[in-house]
């Protein structure tokens, strides 16, 4: 082979890659979404019934999406527990693919089962709206921690105050927490070490399944403690679930069958160590606080 040939090939490859990068630069270095695109999306999503969830495939779009599209400001869009309990839900995607890394974990059967196929799609400028009606999907009967609750710790009843419960050994609040770097609307249980906390939902409306998640708030605390927590759930005094959970499990999902109808629901939480370990040993801050969400679901053809 002529000695000139390898040089020609090398130069040709470099310049060909440069040409490809010119094209890639033209696509990458510009806005993909115009103001008109956002307005069109807003109008489109406003027509979707209020009891159906809408989530973003690309979570990083969240701030602008909430600013431009009021429908996406709901907690079910901004900080959903997962995609269980929605017979119909919708995924707004920019790249065209609904089941992004952000969203795959939101599907309750992932990673053991397949994610569902969209039943239809709408294309709206750069956006694709994927509509899902998964066969056999449960519906949410009640969000049990958003309703009326009675909270007690070892020293007595915790009075309800400013959207939360003020206990003698800590505080229980409905907040948005960061669990595994994802916003989750949940009940944050900021209580002392080794003290059991009891949460009672009297005459809670149950379906055929109780589904919930528990995770630990704040990456700083998770970095400095792996202490587990004991969680017990009872319906009318009968224990239906007992779990030992740690932050290694992330936003840990659990399910238990329940009798349908109105029943007393009691949740007991026992954090073994609420503090964290640092240079100066064990400290009470940052708090390694669990955050819990719990819903009753009803599957098609199920009781309740």
């Amino acid at each position, binding site marked *: 082979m*002529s*000695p*000139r040939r*390898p*040089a*020609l090939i*090398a*130069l040709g*490859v*470099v310049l060909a890659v*440069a*040409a*490809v*990068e*010119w094209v*890639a*630069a033209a*696509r*990458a*270095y*510009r*806005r*993909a*979404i115009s103001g008109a695109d956002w307005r069109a999306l807003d109008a489109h999503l406003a027509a979707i019934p*209020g*009891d159906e969830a809408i989530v973003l495939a*690309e979570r*990083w*779009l*969240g*701030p*602008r999406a*909430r*600013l431009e599209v*009021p*429908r996406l*400001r*709901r*907690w079910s869009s*901004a900080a959903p527990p997962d995609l269980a309990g929605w017979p119909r839900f919708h995924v707004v995607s*920019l790249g065209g693919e609904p089941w*992004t890394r952000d969203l795959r974990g939101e599907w309750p059967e992932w990673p053991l089962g397949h994610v569902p196929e969209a039943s239809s799609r709408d294309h709206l400028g750069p956006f694709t709206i994927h509509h899902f009606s998964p066969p056999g999907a449960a*519906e*949410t*009967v*009640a*969000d049990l921690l*958003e*309703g*009326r609750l009675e909270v007690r710790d070892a020293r007595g009843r915790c009075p309800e105050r400013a959207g939360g419960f003020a206990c003698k050994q800590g505080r229980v609040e409905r*907040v*948005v927490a*960061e669990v595994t*770097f994802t*916003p989750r609307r949940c009940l944050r249980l900021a209580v002392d070490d080794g003290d059991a906390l009891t949460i009672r939902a*009297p005459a809670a*409306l149950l379906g055929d399944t109780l589904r919930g998640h528990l995770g630990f*708030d704040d*990456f*700083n605390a998770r970095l400095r403690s792996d202490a587990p927590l004991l969680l017990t759930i009872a319906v009318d005094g009968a224990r239906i679930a007992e779990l030992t959970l740690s932050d290694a499990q992330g936003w840990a999902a659990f399910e238990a069958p329940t009798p349908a109808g109105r029943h007393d629901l009691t949740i007991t939480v026992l954090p073994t160590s609420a503090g964290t370990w640092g240079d100066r040993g064990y400290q009470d801050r940052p708090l390694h606080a669990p955050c819990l969400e719990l819903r009753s679901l009803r599957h098609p053809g199920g009781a309740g």
Partner: protein
Amino acid sequence: MSGDRKGAGGGSTDAEADDLDASRSLARDAAALPDLDAGGSSDRDTSPSPDRDASAPSAGRRPPLLLALALGAATTTLLSLGHRDVGYTRDEGIYFAASRAYGGWAATLAQRPGEALSAPVRDRAFAVNQEHPALMKLAGGVAARLVATPTVPSPGAQGGDPPTRGLAPLLPEGAAMRLPAQLLAGLGVALLTLAGAGLGGSWIAGVLAALWFIALPRVWFHAGLHCFDVPVAVMTLAVALAYRRALSSPRWGLALGPILGVAIAVKHNALFLPVLLGLHYLVCLGRAGALGRPRLWPALPFASMATLGPLTAFALWPWLWSDPIGRLAGYFAFHRQHSYYNTEYLGLNYNQPPLPLAYPFTLTWATVPTCLLLLAAIGLAIGLWRDLSPRTGSLRQDPKDRRWSAPLRPGEGMDGLLLALLALFPLALIALPTVPIFGGTKHWMTAYPFLALAAASAWGALWRAVTPASASAVGAPLRRRARVLLAPLLALALLLGPSIRSTIHAHPHGLEQYAPLIGGARGAADLGLLRGFWGHALTPLLPTMAGLGERPFDLHDLHELARVQYEREGRWPPGLRPAGTSRAQAALLFHERHMTTYEVQQWNALGTATPAAIVELDDVPLTSLTVRGVNQSDGDPPPADDRGP
């Protein structure tokens, strides 16, 4: 070295001759670092190359000094003007405060040297930010004393730094303090132009080397800051070029130590250089057959680095003048026990080592256009190939008259190996599993000047190989010569276009920019790559913030001292008082994966998950401004049949 190529006047139209010509030049030209003071390496080809002809037919082997100066000056000027839009980074906030202290000391030194040199006065000034050497901060402080426009009194300013006014007020205080780093960036561009022109045999190769480096979005971003990352990259280049000459020149051998000392006084990265250069030197000695002569081991360049280097660094850091051993130990301890940063890589947050080994290599590919990296890789490969090729002629013999002060002869320098060591070591170091997590590409930016030079060397070698010598010969038809001259220019534009476009488009958010093949900022967000880390993408929000009136304000990742700098320049809205998240009525949020913790704290405190305004790069949110009462979150309606008990 005599040229194997036919001279311009002797151009042949014989294709075989051209091919032979090409293969020889490919092996010979690549990665031979030039002698900047001598107008080109003495062992280099003296024949004109096609694109050298294009630039200056009469210039011959003289480095394009005027071009280098022009590019350097343009770089400094553009940085000085353009970086007014770049917000103040967290680290700059601290360095600004340190510079005010050091600048005050310098003013005292000029007026009352005895007082300034007393230990208490010296220590009071240099205790601020003692974990980094003083040189750039001192230079920034002096620059502010010289050219800063008057600052406004800042009641909230930490330490109560008094207002300042430069002798010739031209620039805002922050811009004035950034000026020394910007001047060094200009110097780096000039050095790269000269060195690249020498390596590639043409002024176009010089331009390529300079722009390969400075036109990268992240290099451009860092080059304008009052920080140390681009300055230490430039000083590393200066040390390398001086070292190359020092191997065969006693004059440069002596100069090498002080140059290294200045580099160390900029940032600690330079401390690795003597080890790398020592390794290179031993291989060179071995290759020259002189390793068996122990008197050559501690040659003058290394003696200079071992003695004059530390002395220079010591002289430039007054903090060390009292209790040097104790303070030096504290300095090393700080960096040995550096805390781990949070960094996002492929969707995962890392805050404990090890990072994946591929991290610095992937991030380099993700932030530098692939065509530039390919060219650099070709340059490194050709350089190493050249170094390992059998030696010919006089280089095969080991002369008995090697001197301690100039141990190697021109041509024995193994420039390919030198470039490869300096280009790959910074990345390899960060890839080590025991190295603290830093995260940003700035931590291996010292590699980039050498990748740029490798690209320039590849450029020269490849063009020489593909261009028939006859095409550029004086006697060749004008049209053919014009075609040969135009081709490299078009290729240069093709090669640098993506990078330049990327930098211009991203400004002032170059730190958040990604390469075209990654898909820019959007592609990086999809891949889960770090978005930013310095709390600086703020300036577009300042007008909106000014309309918020009196409010307690959560600064999030904006460092209080960076805020103070805005305040000193009259840019900070006076009604916004720094406050914790729980008491704030408005808040900034600089988006990063691990910052979700603070984002949701703000949602809870402000009662909304919806920003009032956003800074974006290509649709990707960089910074959000959230205000209580603006865009309140809608509650979800309860499920239809949850009517309670």
